[in-house]
């Protein structure tokens, strides 16, 4: 099967406009005869549900949480990009497009990214109209800040809680439609399979997580917006419940899975403190605007700090190594995430780490506090030479920018980041791979769409800061509502789809059989036992740096672990009740397949590219070495029974507007 990306012809800046001018439309009176299922209610799913319901479609929305407001988009901290050029620093749609393609290490699809940049400004307008309280300047205009990997200030934010505020905006738009009866909301429900009738997605099988009841739901189209698969590593910054089940189930039924190896490791997370750790906490990348990253310049100082004999504040400027500023003078602490992450790991591996386990570097705000404090003293006509006053004033400014993050750090680590530098270390954060979609955001299953983090299309091999929220809302508010109409136009006379069709019966049976298998499997180990084992294989051999030997081993080990899981997992309780262990079991079963495909994808990609770093492919200076000649394509995998049999399809990436060059942040 040849992959058809359906990218419209014509100049890049006209593609989306021309496309919208020529697609089929559904008459408003006919929209009420069409049902759409949306799985996941984060930024992408929530905004899509609200918009499609407003347009007149009957929307059935599903989330595993007790309310859409809890989707993990809520935890995004830093901000959302938009090409508004409010600062007059030369930003434009083209520059946002350019930065995003470059930041993605030239592995994103040009046409999709340009469309994203085009609608970005609308997102801000939309959210402000909805009452999202984004940060303001004293004149009442919107404030923004700069973020890693760019040279303009285009990131809009709401303190360190931007994701929360944007999600609550989408949730409020959903609430309006739920109140009008246009969205039927299914909280605490999990999609466990897709139903395909005559080659088209026509419904899902879901489990009511409270009663355990298996339900059939039909629709004319199914949209998956279920987020990423970072929890395949067990430890990640994702919420505990974040899972890949919806995306993986559609993959098993025919949706190709693209670039699973492209996973972002985020440089600024709170380091692991022990074996009990259940998840990792991200500290917003915006901190890198004001925080300076360093380790001791001498190994003996690092050792003394690890042993508690010295403190960070004991070291003078000359005894510190600001390694990002040293290596990448043009971008300094604001280099993209993969570059910052690897540089931190390199220093720690070389023996310069600063926490007990030697896996942490400092993120220091002392300079920012002094700079802001001096400025504030000057503005207020106070004595800028009074060090205590300057520190106090500066700390207040820093607090107003990052207060919640500092509080969060303090609560977890029990150290005050205003006086002692924070400790940070990279952690698994965002997955750029996902279900393959064409320009319409449709997967290789007709009628099954994938939006936001669950698709692969916009971030390439690497994600720039503040671009994930942008894609989620762009897909949901402004892209899918057009493209899905084009697909649904021929279906207006179809009428309601019966859930008594044999395809529904068969899919339901499959789901029930799997659940029964878990419940009746009298094994000896908990689900978490297996999940942690999988996570360890993934982190050790498929993590920040990979090589052919480790990947080959990982593939075998995961397959063996999967076998052991099915033989030996123990799931207490019954199927017909609220059963959190059963929920975990069905999710981990999918991660155990996805992990193997992930490693297989990483093994075949003989290059280093963004978040995918193959040790065999690096420059003499240790930077990622891309191979555009052989790997400028999307790797889309077709399911064939088990991950080892997956078949590779390639979508060549054609760059007509941006020249492929080696990324450099020096």
């Amino acid at each position, binding site marked *: 099967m040849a992959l058809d990306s359906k990218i419209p012809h014509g100049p890049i800046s006209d593609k989306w406009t021309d496309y919208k001018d020529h697609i089929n439309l559904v008459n408003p009176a006919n929209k009420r005869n069409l049902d759409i299922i949306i799985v996941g209610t984060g930024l992408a799913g929530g905004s899509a549900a609200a918009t499609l319901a407003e347009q007149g479609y009957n929307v059935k929305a599903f989330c595993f949480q007790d309310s859409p407001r809890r989707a993990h988009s809520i935890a995004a901290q830093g901000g959302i990009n938009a090409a508004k050029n409010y600062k007059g620093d030369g930003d434009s749609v083209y520059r946002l497009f350019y930065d995003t393609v470059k930041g993605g290490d030239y592995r994103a699809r040009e046409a999709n990214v340009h469309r994203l940049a085009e609608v970005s400004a609308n997102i801000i307008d939309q959210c402000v109209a909805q009452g999202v309280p984004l*940060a303001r300047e004293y004149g009442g205009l919107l404030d923004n800040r700069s973020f890693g990997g760019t040279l303009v200030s285009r990131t809009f934010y709401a303190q360190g809680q931007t994701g929360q505020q944007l999600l609550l905006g989408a949730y409020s738009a959903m609430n309006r439609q739920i109140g009008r009866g246009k969205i039927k909301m299914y909280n605490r429900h999990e999609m466990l399979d897709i139903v395909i009738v005559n080659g088209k997605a026509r419904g899902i099988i879901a489990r009511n997580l409270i009663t355990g009841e298996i339900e059939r739901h039909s629709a004319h189209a199914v949209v998956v917006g279920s987020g990423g698969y970072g929890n395949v590593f067990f430890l990640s910054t994702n919420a505990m419940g974040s899972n890949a089940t919806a995306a993986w189930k559609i993959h098993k039924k025919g949706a190709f899975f693209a670039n699973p190896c492209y996973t972002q490791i985020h440089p600024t997370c709170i380091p692991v403190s022990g074996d009990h750790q259940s998840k990792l906490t991200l500290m917003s990348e915006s901190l890198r605007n004001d925080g300076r990253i360093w380790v001791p310049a001498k190994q003996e100082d690092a050792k003394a700090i690890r042993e508690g004999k010295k403190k960070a504040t004991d070291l003078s400027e000359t005894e510190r190594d600001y390694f990002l500023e040293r290596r990448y003078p043009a971008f300094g602490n604001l280099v993209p995430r993969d570059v910052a992450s690897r540089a931190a790991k390199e220093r720690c591996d070389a023996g310069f780490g600063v926490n007990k386990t030697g896996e942490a570097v400092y993120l220091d705000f002392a300079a920012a506090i002094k700079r802001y404090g001096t400025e504030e003293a000057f503005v207020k006509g106070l004595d800028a030479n009074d060090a205590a006053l300057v520190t106090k004033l500066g700390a207040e400014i820093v607090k107003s920018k990052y207060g919640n993050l500092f509080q969060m750090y303090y609560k977890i680590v029990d150290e005050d980041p205003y006086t002692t530098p924070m400790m940070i270390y990279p952690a698994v954060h965002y997955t750029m791979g996902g279900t393959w979609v064409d320009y319409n955001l449709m997967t290789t299953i007709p009628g099954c769409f994938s939006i936001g983090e669950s698709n692969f299309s916009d971030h390439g091999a690497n994600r720039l800061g503040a671009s994930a929220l942008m894609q989620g809302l762009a897909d949901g508010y402004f892209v899918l509502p057009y493209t899905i109409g084009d697909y649904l136009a021929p279906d207006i006379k179809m009428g309601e789809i019966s859930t008594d069709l044999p395809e529904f019966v068969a899919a339901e049976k499959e789901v029930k059989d799997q659940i029964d298998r878990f419940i009746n499997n009298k094994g000896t180990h908990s689900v978490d036992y297996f999940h942690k084992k999988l996570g360890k294989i993934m982190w050790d051999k498929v993590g920040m740096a990979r090589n052919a030997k480790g990947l080959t081993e990982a593939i075998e080990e995961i397959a063996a672990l999967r076998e052991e899981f099915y033989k030996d997992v123990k799931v207490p309780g019954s199927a017909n009740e609220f059963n959190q262990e059963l929920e975990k079991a069905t999710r981990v079963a999918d991660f155990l397949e996805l992990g193997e495909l992930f490693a297989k994808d990483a093994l075949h990609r003989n290059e280093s590219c963004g978040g995918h770093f193959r040790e065999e492919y690096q420059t003499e200076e240790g930077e990622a070495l891309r191979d555009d000649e052989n790997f400028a394509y999307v790797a889309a995998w077709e399911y064939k029974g088990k991950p080892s049999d997956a078949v590779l399809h390639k979508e060549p990436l054609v760059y007509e507007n941006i020249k492929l060059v080696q990324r450099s942040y020096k």
Partner: protein
Amino acid sequence: MKLTLKIWRQKNAQDKGGIVDYPIDGIEPDMSFLEMLDVLNEQLINKGEEPVAFDHDCREGICGMCSLFINGEAHGPDRGVTTCQLHMRMFKDGDTIFIEPFRAKAFPVIKDLVVDRSSFDRIQHAGGFISVNTSGNTIDANTIPINKHDADKSFDAAACIGCGACVATCKNSSAMLFVSAKVSQYALLPQGKVEAVDRVLNMVHQMDLEGFGNCTNTGACEVECPKGISLENIARMNREYLSASLKG
């Protein structure tokens, strides 16, 4: 650390439920409270017993999913945190810890420590939004300038995570802090003015229908709120409600 946990176990909404004792050992001060429960659950599963059900998700204090009434306090003894941010260093070796669900008529128990907080959603369906089409045809954002002070106050109210600690800790099981935060967020913004009258009337009406109690200005909600939502919002909602009642 060695601890005695006294945990509320309740099989389902119909079950009567009761406290069960669980001794536990080997708890580290660096563990979060929920990680301590993970350790307990792992032990229960290995012994062939059913693990304790509890709600949690992001484990970084922002999703509002975690709950728990710990030693008689919503989200436990620490201030300004959710249960997932509570760490075992707050407890001492040998402590006995009572762990119960958030209790309120409007939050029925689903199982063990898990409660149903969908009443909060229904209050918002009744008016927790600004009616604007999501068409992308809205005006440029900077044509609605908003005083920074108002925007910040609106943000402070919007920072509510909907966890329900305010309800759980209130002797009347009142949801006034939660609802007033929602009302305030929009009342402070120019975009929210058009529907202000209907919004406050509808939301308060739904709040009453759900069975939440009234506010008697005890202020426990503000003390226990992990996000520092201010009582000032309740005063603002009362003003909005009074003025809306006169208009309506």
